[in-house]
Each structure stands twice: as C-alpha cells, then as structure tokens.
C-alpha cells in the first residue's frame, strides 16, 4: 500500500473504529481521532521532506510522485465503450503542501473539539470521514475519483454544522450544502463531457484521467471540448462554458464575491473545529481545484479570461475587507477577512506569472494556518463566555495577557506583517500581478494597486478590533461573572496555538521551504498555458 493511500484511509479506519466501539468507551473516541491525525501529520511531513522539488508534475505523469494507479470500475457500456475509472493518486508541487496543511489543520481541529460533549460517536466519525475526503481531493488524479471525494466532503460537513452548530445551524447547513451542491452538479456535466471528449492514447477508451485531459492531442476530433474545433453550446464556445462551470463550482468554495454568502453564515453557526476546517482547508480546495482542473485542463480559456478572474479577485479583496470593517461579531469579521484574503489567491493566479502563482499558493498555505489560528482563538473566547460580539468586551489584555498576545500575533500575521508568511504571500501576489502587464499583458497594473489597498483595509479592521476589544480599561458585558470565566490560555490551547505561530513565522522567514517545492510545478503550468496560447 502506497503512502498516499495510508494518508487517505487511515482516518477512515479511525472513523470505523469509533463507530464500532461501544458508547461506554466514549472518552476514547477523541484519542483515536487524535492518534490518526498525529500519524497523518508525521506521514505528511515525511512525504513533504522526501518530495523532490525538481519534478514538475502538472500534466506529465512521469514527474508525479508517490503515484498509485489501480483499476477501480470497469463497466461495459456496449456501443459507448468500456467505462474506466481508476483509483489514481499522485502528488506534485501543487498538492504536496496541502497534504501537510490538511494534516495539521485536522490535528488542530481535533484538539479544538476536546470539550465537545454532544453525540461524540457521530462527531468524531464524521470528522474522520471528512478528513479522508479532503486528503482524497488533494491527491486524486482521476476526475471521477476527485468528484467522489469532492462530494463525500459535503456530507459530513452538512451534519457537523447542522447538528453541532449554533442557534441557526440548520439554516446555515442547508445553505452551505445547496450552494456547494449547485456548483458540483454542473461540474458533473462538464466531467462527463470531458470524459467523452478525451481518449486514453494507450487503450483507446475514453478516460477520466485528468492528465490526459491536459494534453490537447488526446481530445478526439470533433468532440465537444476539443481545443481544435470551436464547438458552440447556446452560442457560447463549449470550452469557455466548461471552464466557467468548473470555475463557478470551485469559486463557490474559495469563495468569490458574490458567491460568498454561505461563508459568514456557515462560519458563525459552525462549531469551532468545523470553522477551523472550513477556513483552513475547505477554501483551499477551491483554489486548488482552479489550478489543478480549470487552469490545467482549459489553459486556453484561462489565458483569455484572466482579466475577469483578476477583476473578481480585486473585487473580493476590497469587498471582503470593507465588509469585515463593518462587523460586530468577531467570528463574522474573521470570516469576511477570509473572503478578502482569498481574493489574493485569485488575483495571483490570474496574473499567470511565476511570482503571482507562487504568491497565490503561498497565500493559501499561509491563510490555512492563520485562519485556523484565528478561528481557534475566537472559539476560545466563545467557549468561555458564549459571546463573541466585539462591543461586549473591552480591555481583555489586562485580564488575559497571553491570549491577547496570541490574538495580536494572529492579527498582525494576517495583516501581512513581515516575518510572517502572509507578508511574503501578499507581497509576491501584488508584485506578480503588477508584473503581468510587462510579461504577458494579462491583467492591468491598476488591479495590483487596487489589491494592495486591501492590505491597508485589513490593517484597519484588525487594529480596530484590537483597540476595541483588548486594550483600554477592562469592561465586560457579563461583569464580574465573565471576569471569573475568562481565564487565560491553558496548556491544551497553547499546544494547538504554538505550532501555528511557529509555522507562520518559519514560512515567513524561510519561504524557500514552500517555494522550493512548488517552483517547478508553477513554471510547468505557465509553460502549459503558454504553449496552448501560441
């Protein structure tokens, strides 16, 4: 069995164990989950260490690493040929970092769910199922397999929000579910279309292999998505339509403005560990999908629609930041800041320059740590007094100095203070976006300048919150009782927080830890786009 399969199915094993064990061993569930996550993290770290950054991956199978390919479904469809679905997994520069991120965020999520006491069996089983699905999404190289994992991700999230959430949990859960389902249903259509357009050169059958979809030579003549004939659907080029549908499916996850409104509701209602997973990993699935599927399979359309993607990115940055400025609920503020920060990903990706793409991927990783940390911090406050309205707190710094220090670090890291990862990410996204006009003329320079205003606004809302909630003389809505309840960071919480601070710091000081692994893939993707374009 291959390392990646262990990574995927280990949490599933934990989930099954949790389901089998009798309820009398309830207390042990979290230890199973914790154990699975720790082993996963070790494996992910090992895979990261062993990963050869010189191999590009992207569209060539030879340069993927830890590849495993097993036949999964073989179905004779008569005149339509043989339906072939493979269990096909592998890792390149785009995915290797996400494995580590997923493992880490999952571990943090388990630590954050330590005090949950409602229906433990279901909770940890679903959490582990979610873990399996996310790992699967990041390594699947067969579109069908990808789609299966992608859909499986939805189910546990729906229940996790709908059962363990806050007051309006059912509304939020349904909203989240329908939003994402809407995207993925249409994705199914495009997937089938691609299946019938592409043939495996070695077998001659149609295939779901994503890598074959990235090679224009594999498209059958006259097929709907063939890059050589301009097939039109409803008066629009089929490839453009396919790109847009896939993009919307992933963009809902990212999320982009105006498809973002599930996010604040889901975050506010979700329990802390689910918020951590949502912000830390789920949003990155969107960004990853755009790179792996939209850009790699439709590079020609990526080129021609880069301007629009850049615009959406800039709008998301500014709109998210301005909305965050108006929030009074701390969790909602962090949620809107996520919209803003993920806008940088889109801007960087759209620039199609090495700096912009690397910055975008780096931003996803960095935001993964930092948003997980911020939601964890918000959760800590909520755990203590079941309130998180900014105006109900003041002067927390005198009461909880260590907590305030962590919040300050989290805020400053998120607003792009040098020394932390977000700085490198945002700076290079901006530089890359700016550079695009000189390099490939895809997005105009004003977009980079517009995006940089988002950096200013993020400083505004974070500093305002710091000033309002943490500094000044202590004054709390709950008075004496809250004073008693608001104890400082305990050991369990410190254990969860310190690694995230450490990673944000290490990546900020030594960005090569990430760049060395992704450089080849980034260049290869740019090369892919450029060859299509010419």
């Amino acid at each position, binding site marked *: 069995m291959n390392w990646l399969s262990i990574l995927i199915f280990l949490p599933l094993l934990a989930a099954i164990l949790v389901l089998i064990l009798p309820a009398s061993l309830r207390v042990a569930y979290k230890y199973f989950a914790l154990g699975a996550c720790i082993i996963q993290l070790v494996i992910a770290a090992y895979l990261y260490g062993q990963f050869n950054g010189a191999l590009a991956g992207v569209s060539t199978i030879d340069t993927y690493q830890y590849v495993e390919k097993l036949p999964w479904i073989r179905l004779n469809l008569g005149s339509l040929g043989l339906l072939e679905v493979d269990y096909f997994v592998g890792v390149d520069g785009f995915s290797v970092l996400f494995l580590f991120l997923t493992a880490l965020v999952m571990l943090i999520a388990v630590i954050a769910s330590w005090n949950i006491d409602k229906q433990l069996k279901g909770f940890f089983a679903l959490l582990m199922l979610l873990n399996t699905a996310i790992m699967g999404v990041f390594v699947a190289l067969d579109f069908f397999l990808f789609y299966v994992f992608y859909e499986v991700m939805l189910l546990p999230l729906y229940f996790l929000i709908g059962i363990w959430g806050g007051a309006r949990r059912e509304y939020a859960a349904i909203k989240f579910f329908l939003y994402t389902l809407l995207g993925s249903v249409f994705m199914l259509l495009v997937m089938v279309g691609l299946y019938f357009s592409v043939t495996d050169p070695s077998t001659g059958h149609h295939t779901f292999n994503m890598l074959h979809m990235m090679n224009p030579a594999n498209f059958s003549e006259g097929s709907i998505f063939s890059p050589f004939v301009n097939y039109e659907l409803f008066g629009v080029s089929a490839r453009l339509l396919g790109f847009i549908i896939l993009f919307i499916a992933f963009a809902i996850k990212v999320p982009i403005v105006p498809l973002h409104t599930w996010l604040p509701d889901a975050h506010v209602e979700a329990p802390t560990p689910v918020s951590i997973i949502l912000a830390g990993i789920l949003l990155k699935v969107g960004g990853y999908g755009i790179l792996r599927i939209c850009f790699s399979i439709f590079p020609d359309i990526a080129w021609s629609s880069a301007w629009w993607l850049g615009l959406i990115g800039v709008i998301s940055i500014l709109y998210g930041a301005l909305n965050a400025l108006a929030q009074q609920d701390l969790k909602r503020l962090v949620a809107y800041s996520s919209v803003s920060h993920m806008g940088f990903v889109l801007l960087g990706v759209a620039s199609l320059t090495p700096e912009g793409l690397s910055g975008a991927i780096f931003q996803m990783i960095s935001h993964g740590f930092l948003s997980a940390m911020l939601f964890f911090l918000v959760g800590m406050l909520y755990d203590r007094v079941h309130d998180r309205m900014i105006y109900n707190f003041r002067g927390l710094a005198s009461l909880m100095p260590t907590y305030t220090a962590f919040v300050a670090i989290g805020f400053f890291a998120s607003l792009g203070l040098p020394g932390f990862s977000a700085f490198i990410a945002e700076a290079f996204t901006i530089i890359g976006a700016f550079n695009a006009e000189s390099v490939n003329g895809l997005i105009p320079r004003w977009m980079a300048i517009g995006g940089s205003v988002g950096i200013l606004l993020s400083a505004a809302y974070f500093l*305002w919150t710091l000033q309002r909630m943490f500094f000044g003389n202590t004054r709390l809505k709950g008075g004496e009782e809250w004073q008693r309840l608001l104890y400082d960071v305990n050991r369990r919480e410190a254990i969860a927080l310190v690694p995230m601070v450490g990673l944000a710091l290490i990546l900020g000081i030594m960005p090569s830890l990430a760049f060395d692994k992704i450089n080849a893939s980034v260049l290869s993707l740019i090369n892919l786009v450029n060859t299509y374009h010419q």
Partner: protein
Amino acid sequence: MEYSTHISLPVLTALFALLAPLCSFCISAIGGKSVKSGLPATVMIVGSLLAAIFLFAKVWDGDVVHQQVSWFRIGETEFKAGIILNNLSVLMLLLVCVIALPVHIYSISYMRGDKGIHRYWMYLSLFCFAMLGLVLVDNLLLMYIGWELVGFASYLLIGFWFTKEAAIRANKKAFLVNRIGDLGFLIGIAIVYSQFHTLDLLTLFGDNGIVKQAVNDGITWSFSGREMPAAWLSIAGIAFFLGAMAKSAQFPFHIWLPDAMEGPTSVSSLIHAATMVAAGVFMLVRISPLFDDIVLMAISAVGAFTAFMSATIALTQRDIKKILAFSTISQLGFMMVAIGIGQYGAAIFHLVTHAFFKCLLFLSAGAIIHEMHHLKEVSRLDFNTQDINNMGGLRKFMPKTFCLTLIAALALAGLPLSAGYLSKDAILIYAFEWAEMHQGIWMIIPLSLLLTSALTAFYIARFVFKIFFGVFQLKTTFNKNLHLHEAPKWMLYPMFFLGICSLFPLFSYNPFLFEDVWLLKGFEITESLQRVNIYHTIVPAAVNSISIVVIFLAWRWYARFKYPTALSSGLLYKFSVSQWYLDLAYSRLIVKPTQLISRFLYGVDRQLVDGTVDKLGRIIVGFSGVAAWLDRYLVDGLVNGLGKCSFAVGDFLRGSSKGKVQHYMFSMFLIFLIVLLLGLKFF
C-alpha cells in the same frame, strides 16, 4: 554568485550588531515577566555600538563591503539576502547605536517601577533590531521588511500603556497612516521589479547601477528589452516618496506623529525623533538615482511646505512633547528639501545633527515630565504634567537640565557653535543655489525655509522661556510652596553625552563653515550646482540676525510676560492651535466615509447579495409548495378520483350481488327481454 562559507570580518561584525538586539528581544519574549531588568537589552546595545564603531572605522571612506546568500527562489528568479556596508550604512548604523545606548541607559531610570517594564525592553530591542536591519540590508524587499517592523515596534511602544484610551487610538492611527506609506513602498518595489527584475540595491542604485542605464525618452522607459510608459518612472519615485512621507511624517501624512507622543518619552526620543522617522530620509537617499525631475520637485515642495506648516503649529502648542513633535516634523521637512534639491549629503548631515539635539530635547522633556510626575504624586494635586503653562522658572530647580536643553535649543534654532548651525546652513545655502538655477517660482522654497527658520527660533525660544524662565506657575495656581528636583544622575549622564554631540567639534574644526564638515565629504557632492559665493555669507548672517531678533521677542513675551493677549483670540492663533484642522478634515473626509461605505456594503451584502440567495431559496420553496399542491390535488386527485370512481362503480355493482334469488331472477328476465328485443330488431 559565490556561495562561499567564508564570511568576511566586517560582515560578521555587522551581523553581530544586527543580531544582538534580536537576542535581547528573544530573552525578553521567552522570559516574559521574569525579565524586568534592562540589563540584557543595554548590554546587547553596547555590543552593537562597539561593532558599529569598529565597522565605521573600517569602512568609512573605504571600500564597499557587500556579501549575500541565496534566500529563496521564485520561478527562475533568485532572491538574495545580504548586507551592504558603505558610507551611508555604516554612518546610520553608528548613529542608531550611539543614540540608542544613551536612551537605554536613560530608560533604566525613567521607566523604573512601571508594571509593564518587561514588555518595554522587549519592544525596544525589537525596534533596534528592525532599525539596524533596515539600515544594513542590501535589497529592497529586506528593507521593506525592516521598514514595516520598525513601524510595528513603534505601534507597540506608542500603545505601551495600553489601558490609556488616547495611547491605543494613537498607535492605531500611527500604524494605519504608515500602512498607506507601506503600500507606496510596495508598489514602488513592484515597479522596480517589473522593470529591472532585481531588487538588489547595489545592482540597481550602485555606481554603475542599472537604474541609470535605463533609457527614458519621454514616452517609454525601457531597460534591456522591457519597457513601460515613461510615466511609471515618476510613479515609482512618487510611490517610494509616499512611503517616506508616511514614515517621516510629511504633510499630509504627518498627523500620526504628534499623537505618537502618547508613548513613553524615552521612546519618543529614540523612535519618533532621532531614528525611525528619519528612515524615510535614509530610504530616499538610498534609492536616489531613481528620481526624475518631477519627483525631486515634488519632494522639495512637500518638504518645504511641511517644514513651514508644522513650524506654525509648534508656535502655539501647550503640550511639551507636542511642540517637540511638530518641531521634528518641521526638521524632517528640511531634510526632504535637501533631498529634493539633490543634496543627499546635506540631508544625511542634518539627519545626524538633528538626531542628537532632538533626542536631547526629548530626554530633557522626559526629565521634566518625570519630575513633574513625581511632584504630582507627592503633593497629591491634580494637574497636567506636560502642559508648559504649568511650568516656568524651572532653571532654578533643574539647572543641569536647563543647560542641556539650552544647548539643544540653540542647535535647533541653528545658532553658531552648534552642530545644527552647520547642517541647517548647508541646506539653506544649497537651496538658494538650487533656486538660482531653476529661477522663478522655485525661489519660494529657500525663502519659505528662511521663514521657517525664524519660526523655529521663535517656538524653541518660547519653549525654553516658558519652561525655565519666569516663575513656577503651579506655585501660583495652587498657592503652595512646591518645588522640583534635578533629574536622577543616570538620566543626566546620557543627556550630557548628547549635549556634547550637539556641538560643532564632533563634525568640524571650523564652527562657521559647513564645507569643512568631514561627514559631507563622505558623500557624493553634486557638481552641477554653481557655487554662488554671496549666499555662503549672506544666508548665515541673515538667518542668525533674524533668529536673534525673534528670540529677543520671545524673551520679552514669555520670560518678561509682555505677551500681547490679543493674539490668542485671533483666527490664525486658532488655526495653529487646532493644527490646521487636519485631524478634523481626515475624520470627516476619509474615516467617516470609509465607515459609511463599509456599513453600506454590508447592508448590500445582507440585503442584496444574500437577500437574492434567500429569495431564490424562498421562490424555490414557493414553487415546490405549488408543485406539492398540484401533486396533492391534481395528479394525486386524478388518481384518487379514478380510484373513487371505480370504487363507486364497484360499490354499485356489489349491490347487485347480494345473494337474493328474486333479484337474480329479475336481472335475468331483464337481460333476456333486452336480448329478445334487440334480436327482434335485427332480424
């Protein structure tokens, strides 16, 4: 690129100087509340200072030392990290350490007994590290990192007393205003990178820097195949200048500096007077080859205006620290003008002399506040310890502080024998020569500087006379026999040192001629200026005679109490006291609208964007309701109707088979009759 493991001695020493404060920061950060003593921080800064002295002796007017290592690689571009030691960086390194050490020593006394003292040393060390980094690094990206980190340290130190509402508002304001500048810096970096594909300072701006090789023909700005519209060259310069404007508190971004005075006074002296605020000037000098004429003109215009504006504000302020803050802004304006007219050496020279005398002024102010505070605690009276209207006659209580303040004040006013005389004259004279070249309207710049010099002499004389001359105002207010003490000796020693540095001998053997200053000779002198000899005589004479007149006026007004009270009700007075109403304007024009926009957008988000989604959801639910009704009553109704129909038929028919023989007989007879009738009809 040689990846030699060998690091040369100067670079090693520079690394030591850089990392020593970082070590002290780490000690404080890890030790937390247990590290209350300022000893680690002070020892480390002594280490940095020794290293700086060594480097200065070795590198000044010698060869440039430059070493770098690979930092990371994006795509095919390699980013390097390195240290550059040339005249500018070793001078700044030495200056920062020389100022930082006295401030550290002073702080031990000044901050004694503060509850948050452990944080104080931590933040101060972080600042020193960031500032030294900013000075030493060899590329724009690293410089930007140092640039933001000093801003961050400044944020922490302004808000050091975080329970004070004014302090935490001030530090937020400082950080945000600086952030605007940071964006400028970042965009500048993006432009330079886009055009030259490197951020290396020496490659870009060195003697044969590629910036100078780029061709600008007025339409396009091109370098080795890459080109941009020519406007971007100016935009790049303006973008960097924007960064410098925010950091060095130039109009319209100066508003954060007066508020920053909420921090401890020792911090104000080091960060908000001597070093950090000068970083903007330093940065502009570093990248000076990038500037075209438009940018230089803009720099000198903004500098001159800032100098004038803040001098007018300083005239009427009552807070001892605010006066000094506006004075700092004004002096930074002088340095900006020097840059704008291309005299980078003069700018740096003024930066150095200003660092000494302004730091001394702040430390004196700190000593006074310290003693006033002490008095407030002892006497249990309530009064503002920073209001100069509460002071007066302090020279009798604090003679040493008085003498030192006097030296610094003379240097600020630019009177002979002080260091300030040399540097300010240099700027003024060069400005006149420059204006001579440009003619016309540009003459306004040196003239406004001359006017500003007079204002400077006036406000600093007012400062000295109101504080040290006349009678102690609190005595009359409270009608009690109150008196102050001289500051503790460990606060005075650093001040003595700075006092000596504020005099001419450190810079030149000749107290009257700036041309003999060794420091200026360390920088490239722009040859293009024609030397107009007359200015070299007239300007110093004019400046000094005007200064003496206004000082005499101030003496009559404030020491002899001949103040024309009608002045205080005038419009101009109000305009000055309220700092040209700029804070109000910003609040109305920028802060409030931004808040409104953000609230409006949130409404849009809830009502329109999310509202559409919700409405869509409701419409679908509505449709499904209709469908459910149709299903229930139409589709199902049809099915049910059919069922009911057959049921009724069945029911009817069932009635016919109840087992009664008579009925059967009747039916049979009926059927037989019908068949018979039908049969008869057919046949």
